[in-house]
């Protein structure tokens, strides 16, 4: 498999939240605005990239029986680094994301990539895999956040973009809106895939 393929699979074929349907907890919880989705996505991407690199480097050193414990320590360390950095330089975003930053530790995408990919491949493909998955996750969260923000607040990244008489659908920025949006996106993705298959 080529590096490009490792990178691009995270962008469509194995797009984390919408195709693998993994890591849904932050996907549903923090996507009330595009900015929050982007922040959460970038934090996760950083952790995913770093943990993939380190796990791949240590793959021949870590004994099989304690691998999960070792991965969790590695992942948790990067999560704490992200948390401290956000607290120091992006305090408002840190406040909004709240508990979901520490919870990146248990995001199944990250442990999943460490276990399924980085522990079996060398550093460069693992980097490509982590970066691709991370960017896919970030784009998905930003996309979902943007839809919910535009329909729920009438803004995009905080800027008003809808016409004056637009009445925001408050339900879209509440939990039910997250489920509605996610369901519709999953349906749309499946429909597109089905069509692609038919054309083949």
């Amino acid at each position, binding site marked *: 498999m080529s590096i490009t393929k490792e990178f691009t699979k995270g962008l469509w074929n194995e797009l984390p939240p919408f195709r693998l349907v993994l890591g849904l907890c932050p996907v549903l919880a923090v996507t009330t605005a595009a900015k929050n989705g982007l922040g959460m996505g970038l934090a996760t991407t950083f952790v995913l990239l770093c943990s993939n690199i380190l796990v791949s480097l240590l793959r021949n050193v870590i004994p099989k029986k304690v691998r999960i414990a070792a991965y969790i*320590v590695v992942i*948790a*360390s990067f999560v*704490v680094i992200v948390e*401290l950095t956000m607290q*120091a330089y992006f*305090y408002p975003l840190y*406040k909004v994301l709240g508990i979901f930053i520490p919870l990146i530790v248990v995001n199944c995408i990250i442990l999943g990539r460490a276990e399924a990919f980085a522990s079996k491949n060398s550093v460069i493909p693992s980097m490509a895999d982590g970066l691709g998955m991370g960017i896919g996750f970030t784009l998905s969260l930003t996309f979902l956040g943007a839809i919910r923000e535009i329909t729920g607040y009438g803004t995009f990244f905080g800027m008003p973009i809808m016409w004056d008489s637009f009445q925001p659908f408050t339900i879209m920025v509440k939990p039910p809106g997250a489920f509605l949006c996610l369901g519709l996106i999953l349906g749309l993705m499946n429909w597109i895939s089905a069509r692609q298959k038919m054309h083949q």
Partner: protein
Amino acid sequence: MRDLIKMVVVLTVICAGSALILSYTNQATKVQREYQLLKYVKGPSILAVLSDYDNDPLKDSIVVDIGKDSEGNPVQKTVFPARKDGKLIAVAYDTSDDKGYGGVIDIMVGLDSAGELTGIAIMTSSESPGYGAEASKPAFTDQFRGMHPNDINLAADGGKIDAVSGATLTSKAVVRALKRAVKIFPAIKKEVS
């Protein structure tokens, strides 16, 4: 046996490495994190009670000794000075009273160099919503702007403050906290300027 030792060693090394990196990150971001906390939590209150300054009161904050408690330990307070052209024009610091209607009330108070109030802001209070919460609103807090310390008393007790109707206990707690703040002002002024 060899496997067991390897597992223990590898896990220990990974944990130690993690601890090292984290303690470094913690140190490296400490000052900036404390500043952010100040800016977003206390900051709005501090900036609300001070005006017409050209420095950053949050960055210039100083810790001063304001006497000793009953056991002889020094009592310290963080003071936020407002300066213009290098000259001290006012200071802000927090004060509190623990006998409000719902417990502790924390207040940020600003005093100019003559000792008159430049403003107050209620930071945290667990007063009941409705009456008690009215004390955080400008209708109540704006009364204190430019007030001479001697006038800090409820109108009913011979002062110039109109209590929030329905929240006498809260109003009294605010007055007590402010009196406490005024009392330590001479010591603070001496240390800051």
